[in-house]
């Protein structure tokens, strides 16, 4: 019993790599298995020392059997065939099973008289190798066997029978170097299996031997190089369509990373390693690029090199059936960021065995294979959702990034280089263009406003590439409408978005009463864009902003803004004068707090200093000036109310008295005018008469 256990444990030890292909979970199991194997081996040693006679007992049986089976002529008829029954005693003695007697395997001979009846029952390796038996039973081979497929391999077909040696022994039929040939006995061109069974790969053995793995194994003799069993497992061989298979799409990454442990860091730039397992359905599996059996360091070489594609596609007049141009400028490719990426890496689904490898292509280029993270953002974005809804206006990757001429965003020639971004977005978002036409929000002439804004000027006139561009605020790929809580321009996220550059301001703003709160009347407190606008952001030290701010604050603080305009500061600012106190000069801009807050610029402790910013000699009494006073409120401002009504009464009564006096006077004045005219005329005629007697010579003197 102990011996059986020992052998049963020994076998998985040899094939440990093959058994543990399935997942990272089985790696854990692997550790446990190693420890238990070690324990079992130790037990084996002890048992062998304690019971040497059992071994000799086996030898006795073997001796007995060999008396007949060492005869080379001993044979039997199985159907039409004559089968030799010779057992090479020497080889058996050297085999791993030599310590066991023949009857340990040929169990039906136990206690039988010799010579025995034929045929014997089939040897059941599973008596000892129960785990392998189980794996085999579930495997492709085991199931074929169960179906009665005559081509299905049994244990002996791979391992041999009486001459089984440990797998580490180079004489073993399943030694690493031999495995490809063991498998190749069935899985190579022309064999019944390859011809009659649905095997989807061709030239497996040839391809493998030419692959980087095969080369390492055969040419360099590296027995650690993977052979068939390394990927397919020795006993749990399953089709790749079976989710439990070591080469199933979900598991292939785990299988490859068993050896290529560092491969994640190699691919990290393009794919986060963990996603291979988590999102295997989205991401390409290893074999998508590194084709099974043909794996080379330089892949896609034969028939699928860029040069092969350009044989046709270099022609600028090449057209698709729907008259799309299929020409590719080699020059563009050479300067693009993807210069090291082969055509077929993006235009996947090519088949090198065709004259036109591209004729098997059925899908458009999918950038998400490599750019998984941005792809995820994009798919959630308004652009991505439109694309998913097959909207003809939706921009896909190439709309912004281009195709073969794709350049990095740090390249000034790239459409995604900061200074080019506004032009890029303007293609759709300029007034009248396809995105602007569908847009129903309040933002208009976005591009024009941006260009004139402080950001636009910084970017386009001053050439500051760190200036906020469209993508600076809206993000490049996760563009969402502001109503979406995840949008970078959603109200809740605006301070953070602006704060990415204006960090100091954000810190101040966080402590203000406006910071993401709800006002008393249910109105939401303002965020950056409510005062600074979104696209037309101007310099705050320029008149336009200074004069506009009262209206901005007044949107919510309606009454208080109105009373501001009733007092000196408000009146002069309405005249376009900017050197006077505006809302933020007293209340603070980003750190605005209610005057009751001790930190406020208008708290009792701070108000005089605030006035002194402009009025150097201000004292506490001066600070008592009512900056928001109105003379219409007798309760709050009685002095002003009565001063106003006192003056108004004085005014009205004076005007009434003066007016009535004047109006009463008017008819008399007119009458008086008539009388005077008449008198004047009388006098004039009298004068003329006098003149007439004096003569015309004195006329000049009269005029003087």
């Amino acid at each position, binding site marked *: 019993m102990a011996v059986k256990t020992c052998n049963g444990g020994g076998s998985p030890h040899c094939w440990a790599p093959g058994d543990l292909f399935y997942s990272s979970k089985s790696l854990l199991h692997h550790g446990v298995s190693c420890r238990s194997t070690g324990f079992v081996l130790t037990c084996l040693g002890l048992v062998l020392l304690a019971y040497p006679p059992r071994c000799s007992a086996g030898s006795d049986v073997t001796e007995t059997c060999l008396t007949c089976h060492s005869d080379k002529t001993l044979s039997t008829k199985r159907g039409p065939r004559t089968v030799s029954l010779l057992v090479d005693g020497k080889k058996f003695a050297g085999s791993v099973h030599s310590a066991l007697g023949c009857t340990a395997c040929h169990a039906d001979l136990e206690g039988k008289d010799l010579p025995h009846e034929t045929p014997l029952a089939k040897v059941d390796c599973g008596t000892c190798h129960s785990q392998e038996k189980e794996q085999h039973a579930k495997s492709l081979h085991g199931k074929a066997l169960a179906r009665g497929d005559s081509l299905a391999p049994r244990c002996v077909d791979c391992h041999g029978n009486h001459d089984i040696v440990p797998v580490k022994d180079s004489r073993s039929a399943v030694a690493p170097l031999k495995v490809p040939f063991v498998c190749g006995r069935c899985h190579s061109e022309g064999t019944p299996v390859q011809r009659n069974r649905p095997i989807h790969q061709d030239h497996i053995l040839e391809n493998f031997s030419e692959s980087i793995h095969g080369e390492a194994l055969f040419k360099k003799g590296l027995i650690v190089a993977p052979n068939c069993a390394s990927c397919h497992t020795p006993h749990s061989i399953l089709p790749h369509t079976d989710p439990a298979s070591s080469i199933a799409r979900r598991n292939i990454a785990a299988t490859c990373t068993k050896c290529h442990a560092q491969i994640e860091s190699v691919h990290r730039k393009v794919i986060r390693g963990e996603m291979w397992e988590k999102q295997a359905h989205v991401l390409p599996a290893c074999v998508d690029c590194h084709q099974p059996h043909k794996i080379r360091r330089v892949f896609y070489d034969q028939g699928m090199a860029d040069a092969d594609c350009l044989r046709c596609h270099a022609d600028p007049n090449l057209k698709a059936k729907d008259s799309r141009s299929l020409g590719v400028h080699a020059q563009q490719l050479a300067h693009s960021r993807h210069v090291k990426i082969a055509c077929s890496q993006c235009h996947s689904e090519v088949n090198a065995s065709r004259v036109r490898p591209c004729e098997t292509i059925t899908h458009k280029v999918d950038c998400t294979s490599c750019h998984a993270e941005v792809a995820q953002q994009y798919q959630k974005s308004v652009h991505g959702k439109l694309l998913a809804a097959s909207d003809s206006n939706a921009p896909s990757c190439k709309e912004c990034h281009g195709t073969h001429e794709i350049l990095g965003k740090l390249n000034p020639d790239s459409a995604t280089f900061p200074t080019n971004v506004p032009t890029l977005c303007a293609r759709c978002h300029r007034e009248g263009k396809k995105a602007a036409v569908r847009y129903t929000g309040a933002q208009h002439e976005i591009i024009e406003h941006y260009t004139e804004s402080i950001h636009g000027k910084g970017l386009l006139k001053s050439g500051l590439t760190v200036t906020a561009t469209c993508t600076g605020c809206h993000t490049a790929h996760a563009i969402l409408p502001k109503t979406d809580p995840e949008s970078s321009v959603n109200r809740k996220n605006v301070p953070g978005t602006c704060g990415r550059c204006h960090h100091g301001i954000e810190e101040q703003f966080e402590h203000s009463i406006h910071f993401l709160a709800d006002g008393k009347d249910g109105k939401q407190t303002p965020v950056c864009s409510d005062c600074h606008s979104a696209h037309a952001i101007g310099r705050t030290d320029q008149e336009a902003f200074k004069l506009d701010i009262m209206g901005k604050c007044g949107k919510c603080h309606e009454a208080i803004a109105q009373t501001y305009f009733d007092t000196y500061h408000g009146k*002069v600012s309405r005249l376009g004068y900017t050197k006077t106190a505006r809302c933020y000069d007293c209340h603070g801009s980003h750190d605005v707090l209610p005057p009751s807050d001790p930190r406020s610029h208008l708290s009792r402790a701070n108000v005089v200093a605030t006035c002194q910013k402009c009025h150097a000699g201000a004292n506490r009494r*001066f600070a008592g000036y009512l900056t928001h006073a109105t003379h219409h409120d007798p309760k709050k401002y009685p002095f002003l109310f009565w001063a106003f009504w006192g003056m108004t009464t004085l005014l009205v009564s004076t005007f009434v008295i003066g*007016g009535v006096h004047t109006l009463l*006077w008017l008819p008399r*004045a007119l009458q008086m005018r008539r009388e005077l005219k008449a008198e004047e005329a009388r006098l004039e005629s009298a004068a003329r008469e006098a003149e007439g007697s004096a003569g015309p010579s004195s006329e000049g003197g009269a005029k003087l």
Partner: protein
Amino acid sequence: MTPGKPELREYVRFSRLNRVLHVLMIVSFISLALTGMTLKFSYTAWAVALSHILGGFETAGYIHRTAAVLMVGVFVTHITNLIRRKKSEFGTWRNLIFGPDSLMFNRRDLTEFIGNLKWFLGRGPRPAYGRWTYWEKFDYFAVFWGIAVIGSTGLTLWFPTFFTRLLPGWALNVATIVHSDEALLATGFIFTVHFFNTHLRPEKFPMDIVVFTGRMKVIELQHDKPREYEAMVASGKLEENLADPYPPIVLRAVRIFAWTALTFGFCIIASITYAMVFAYR
């Protein structure tokens, strides 16, 4: 019909100094009104435009304060002149203030006022006015009142940090109301009632320019101020108060100035009316 013939000579009603002061008063008053009302009616588009025309609010402020100083200067000059005349002509304040030609109100003004109202209603003859009618006296003292009220509040608003050492902060608010409403009263009164009473009366139409030339026809004096005329004739002083009229070019210049001032006045009234009636907030 020789030059200097008594019929052609005119009665000199205003001294040269008083005429100059009136011109300066007009200049400063209109400047103050224009610049001040841009602020008072800042909610109207014309105020904003006017403020820009005046060189922006800051410049308008300088103009306003310069004009204020000028007006106070006019006032001080007049008082100084009074003091000088008190010494040379009247001897005592009593004679100056309560003399027959004084601008101080007296009982006769009341009877003349009542008589005038009767005349308005056709119940009696026009009162025989002396040197100063009651409305002229009213206009004269309105300046005293205006200078005192608008001047003091204006000064407070000019130096708020100084005055709040003595006054509470809200006094500035009150000062603003008083300053601006009193100015409104002054402007409105001068450009309507005063214009009508003294310059634009139909019988003097188109304009009485005596305040600029200082000269009025004797016949006019006879009509307007019969009591003064008679006193002059009785005392025989009429002749020494007569002078040759100014040459036409001077009169032309005077009329241009007067019409300009009048136009400003009417524009200001129109603007105020618009702001108060149609755009009031």
